[in-house]
């Protein structure tokens, strides 16, 4: 692994730990959000917040609305009602490109790298929305230092990479935007255990550097080990919320929240 160089991230005044609990103003705030696809309501009045420097996990069974939440924050889905704000500014009516520009990068489920483009071109497009083009070469170098295999495969088309390498590229592409908040959708999905470990080690490094993250993850242990706080979603509603330590200590409560019993 690379040395712990500072990652491309806009300077966020990172307080010590768990700023949400110390009452700091949240960087990303979702309040009473409702999202529906036609007649199906995917999210029913969810509120959550992520403070600067914080890692928040979003847990829940398939279909609980986790991905929809990330898609709505990114502007790919429109909320029926509610509000999403970044640093106090409402973003839930903005097109995706504006939201990226304001500082939210989304590393999507299934990686979604551009398979016909090279690794270097994928990273370049990650920075396409950036207002200031300076520092791009340095950011790319840091990502190559994080994932040396990407440097080796720089000119190869992304479609020829293994699943793990594609996940690294998707993460690198999102970081190239210098996000204030990084949205991660199932970064461990379909990867071999060793690669999952590597990805999560990298995420831990990013966290140490103060990168703010909202993480959707099926693997509860991994997610709670990384996160400061977590929300459990069930059929579009928050069924449990608390600090990661609390939830780790009480798995029965988490399991119950997955299955539906209210705490």
């Amino acid at each position: 692994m690379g040395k712990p160089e500072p990652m491309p991230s806009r300077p966020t005044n990172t307080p010590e730990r768990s700023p949400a609990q110390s009452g700091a103003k949240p960087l990303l705030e979702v309040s009473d959000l409702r999202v529906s696809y036609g007649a199906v309501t995917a999210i029913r009045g969810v509120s959550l917040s992520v403070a600067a420097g914080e890692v928040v996990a979003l847990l829940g069974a398939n279909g609980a609305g986790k991905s929809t939440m990330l898609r709505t924050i990114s502007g790919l889905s429109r909320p029926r009602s509610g509000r999403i704000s970044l640093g106090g500014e409402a973003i839930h009516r903005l097109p995706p490109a504006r939201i990226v520009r304001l500082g939210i990068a989304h590393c999507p489920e299934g990686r979604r790298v551009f398979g016909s483009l090279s690794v270097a071109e994928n990273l370049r497009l990650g920075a396409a929305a950036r207002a200031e083009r300076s520092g791009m070469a340095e950011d790319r170098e840091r990502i190559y230092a994080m994932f040396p295999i990407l440097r080796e495969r720089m000119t190869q088309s992304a479609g020829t990479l293994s699943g793990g390498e594609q996940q690294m590229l998707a993460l690198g592409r999102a970081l190239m935007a210098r996000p204030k908040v990084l949205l991660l959708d199932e970064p461990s999905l379909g990867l071999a255990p060793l690669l999952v470990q590597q990805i999560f080690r990298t995420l831990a490094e990013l966290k140490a550097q103060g990168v703010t993250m909202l993480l959707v993850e099926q693997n509860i242990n991994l997610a709670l080990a990384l996160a400061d706080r977590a929300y459990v979603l069930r059929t579009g509603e928050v069924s449990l919320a608390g600090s990661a330590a609390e939830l780790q200590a009480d798995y029965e409560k988490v399991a119950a929240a997955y299955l539906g019993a209210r705490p």
Partner: protein
Amino acid sequence: MNLGLYITQQVINAIALGSLYALVAIGLSMIFGILRMANFAHGDMMMVGGFGTLVLQATGIGFGWAAVGGIAIGALCGVIVERVAYRPVRGSPEVTLLLTSFAVTYILENLGILIFTSSAHNFPLPDWMDNAFQFSDGQITFTQINILTVVLTAVALAGLGWFVTRTDLGLGMRAAAEDMGAAHLVGLDVNRLIIVAFAIASGFAGLGGVLWAAQSGVVSYSMGFTPLLKAFVAAIIGGFGSIAGALLGGYLLGALEILIVAFLPAEVSPYRDAIVFALLIAFLLFRPNGLLKRAQEVKL
């Protein structure tokens, strides 16, 4: 007759015809790649380019500038059509998009008839373009237009190749063609990409129209129809949505048609189009993704 020269001439003919098909097919494929829309109005940009050149030439600015202007008018027309007709129905089911593009075709062609009547107009060429190089006592002829077609297409393709591999916009266009959702997620301005794609595609069709008119000597409201159908065949053979595929398909189709006309018995020539469309059916049946486009693979 010198067989070597004959073959050389036919190769040049094949490359020239293939260039025209490629110019039109690339635009079709670009637009399909990004919008998943078979743009039947694409051929009409050839007409717009042809008539635009004709009108500008009448003002006396010289053929070269008139052609540049005609191509620019074709590109502009494509951008306007996108804004006015296609953007409002973007994301609709394929049938809606298809019918919209038919409607645009009817409107543009009837505008063509209103302004220029339904009869074909002479497309005058300056003397420097009307040249032909003759060898072996006139048995072998290379026309200046053929050579110009090959050269201009090569220049246009080189420019496009640079654009889609070296610029953010060009890379973004390829990215959007591959995965529109992910293109949104990395913050690409998709509207801008689509406008640029229409400008390039329609400009290429405009250039194709000028060259087609120069080859045939006439412009008419329906001049884009046959090349459009051929371009569809070329784009599908190569892999609909792939720029490289459209290029390959265009040249393969040009080569095939010249092969049929030049090297098969004369009785076969009238069936040229039938053979081409039989090839299309064969591709649709046995290799619907075309030569270059891979089926999307999912890696775990």
